[in-house]
């Protein structure tokens, strides 16, 4: 009898200590959780996809070094994200909303049993968002490929993630972020047009200009070492993008299907229009052109996937290819060395998508926006909101990147030495040369 009472007391105490979790537990939506787990894995798959895409485009002496730019982000950013990234991005506003903070997200220590209103465990959501944080700095690496010191790069992406990505992510996606609440129904950035692509593209451009060109650019012809790898990488990115976009619905239902459809269509129309433009402009369609078109279309539809219908996605894909192609031609004229066109594709494509999506928003969304703004909400109102979000992202990431690189460069040389650049980055990634080159004959 006494034993039973002690036991009861213990159970009572235990329940009291962990009281909160028993009371406000929402039910897990297994369907949504299953899809979000899949999406999380798909978005992670984009990182090796990106590594292959970039790895094929550089010269053979830089393949492994370039691939490592993507892979090391999986290490560095994952750790940072768990430690403070999630708290900075999805905590409540602090310091006037520059970023968020919540101690229960510090090392994710307080979400062990949390289930979000969407019916998925918060762990899944935080890991899903963490993958976005990983791929964004990895995208920047394309702008200064083949000429950056590995050590400086590691430090750069760590600081960039903390000081650029996390605040932007908070502004756009946190419930109390200022861009999230701009205008009637907020700035539309479904899966990261501003947060991921514009910020990465613009930062890449700034970094590329700060570092200066590669040795010999543009007089010496710098040819891709293996476009087969690049094509496979582009394919993996396309597949992974279904997690990126359709997963951003944080559900498994109608909006997921809408985002998935828009994604497929924009990628296809982007790829097709790129090779058509090329055929007219240069007389032939190329494999790299097709891959670039896929990416341009996917980037442009990223902010829009949740609000546009198929014809809108199709037009966004075309527009993205036209503008990105033009941007890359302009780059060749202007002569700055954005090695693998991180700005040309991600920056320009992201801006295209974020602005032009205003014209293709589905009716029901606009009606809800009108209702929310007590009256009329027009395309032009939304375009204003979108422009403000885009300008904010451009200005913020450009200035912060410049500051980070400038300060970092004081302590550790950001650009690799001339000798290292001539020898190739692979030398520094510690493996024997011939194992690095998939096609060692390319000089």
């Amino acid at each position, binding site marked *: 009898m006494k034993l039973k009472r002690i036991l009861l007391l213990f159970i009572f105490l235990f329940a009291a200590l962990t009281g909160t979790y028993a009371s406000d537990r929402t039910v897990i939506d297994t369907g949504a959780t299953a899809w979000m787990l899949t999406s999380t894995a798909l978005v992670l798959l984009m990182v090796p996809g990106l590594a292959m895409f970039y790895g094929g485009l550089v010269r053979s*002496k830089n393949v492994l070094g370039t691939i490592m730019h993507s892979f090391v982000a999986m290490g560095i950013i994952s750790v940072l994200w768990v430690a403070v990234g999630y708290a900075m991005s999805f905590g409540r506003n602090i310091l006037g909303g520059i970023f968020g903070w919540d101690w229960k997200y510090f090392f994710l220590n307080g979400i062990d049993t949390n289930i979000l209103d969407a019916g998925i465990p918060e762990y899944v959501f935080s890991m899903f968002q963490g993958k976005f944080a990983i791929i964004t700095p990895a995208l920047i690496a394309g702008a200064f490929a083949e000429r950056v010191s590995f050590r400086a790069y590691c430090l750069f992406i760590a600081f960039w993630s903390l000081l650029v990505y996390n605040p932007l992510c908070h502004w756009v996606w946190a419930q109390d972020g200022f861009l999230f609440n701009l205008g009637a129904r907020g700035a539309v950035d479904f899966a990261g047009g501003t947060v991921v692509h514009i910020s990465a593209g613009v930062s890449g451009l700034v970094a590329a200009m700060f570092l200066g060109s590669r040795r010999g650019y543009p007089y*010496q012809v710098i040819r891709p070492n293996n476009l087969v790898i690049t094509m496979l990488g582009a394919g993996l990115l396309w597949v992974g993008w279904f997690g990126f976009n359709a997963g951003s619905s944080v559900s498994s239902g109608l909006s997921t299907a809408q985002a998935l459809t828009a994604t497929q269509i924009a990628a296809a129309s982007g790829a097709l229009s790129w090779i058509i433009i090329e055929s007219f402009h240069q007389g032939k369609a190329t494999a790299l052109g097709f891959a670039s078109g896929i990416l341009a279309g996917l980037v442009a539809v990223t902010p829009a996937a949740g609000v546009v219908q198929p014809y809108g996605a199709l037009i966004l894909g075309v527009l993205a290819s036209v503008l990105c192609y033009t941007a890359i031609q302009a780059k060749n004229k202007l002569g700055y060395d954005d090695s693998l066109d991180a700005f040309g594709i991600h920056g320009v494509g992201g801006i295209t998508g974020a602005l032009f999506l205003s014209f293709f928003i589905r009716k029901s969304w606009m009606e809800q926006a009108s209702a929310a703004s007590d009256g009329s909400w027009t395309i032009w109102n939304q375009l204003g909101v979108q422009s403000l979000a885009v300008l904010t992202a451009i200005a913020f990431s450009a200035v912060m990147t410049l500051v980070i690189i400038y300060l970092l460069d004081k302590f550790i040389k950001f650009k690799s030495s001339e000798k290292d650049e*001539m020898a190739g980055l692979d030398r520094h990634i510690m493996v*024997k*040369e011939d194992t690095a080159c998939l096609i060692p004959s390319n*000089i």
Partner: protein
Amino acid sequence: MKLITAIIREVQLDKVREALIKAEITRITVSRVSGHGQQRIEEMYRGRRIVPDLIPKIKIEIAVNEAFVDITVDTVLKSAKTNGVEGHVGDGKIFITPLEECIRIRTGERGGSAI
């Protein structure tokens, strides 16, 4: 006519090519080779120190008329050397061999004018 074969460091290829182009020697053949000379390098593989038997090098082959032999050799010498005037073990070697004949496939031209 002479055939000049230079074995150089991979790293120096850009410099050597730039120098050769400056000296107006543009007809060259480049290949990736590996070999064994005096140089010994250590590499790390999974934390283990290894000394590869064969070290990767670049081979440049240049066929020239007698008048160009000296300038070609000087250019390669200057541009392939690392560490200033002193040089380093592993900077490479230059071989000069007599060239019996040179034929341009397109026209069938022979001798010095075909180079």
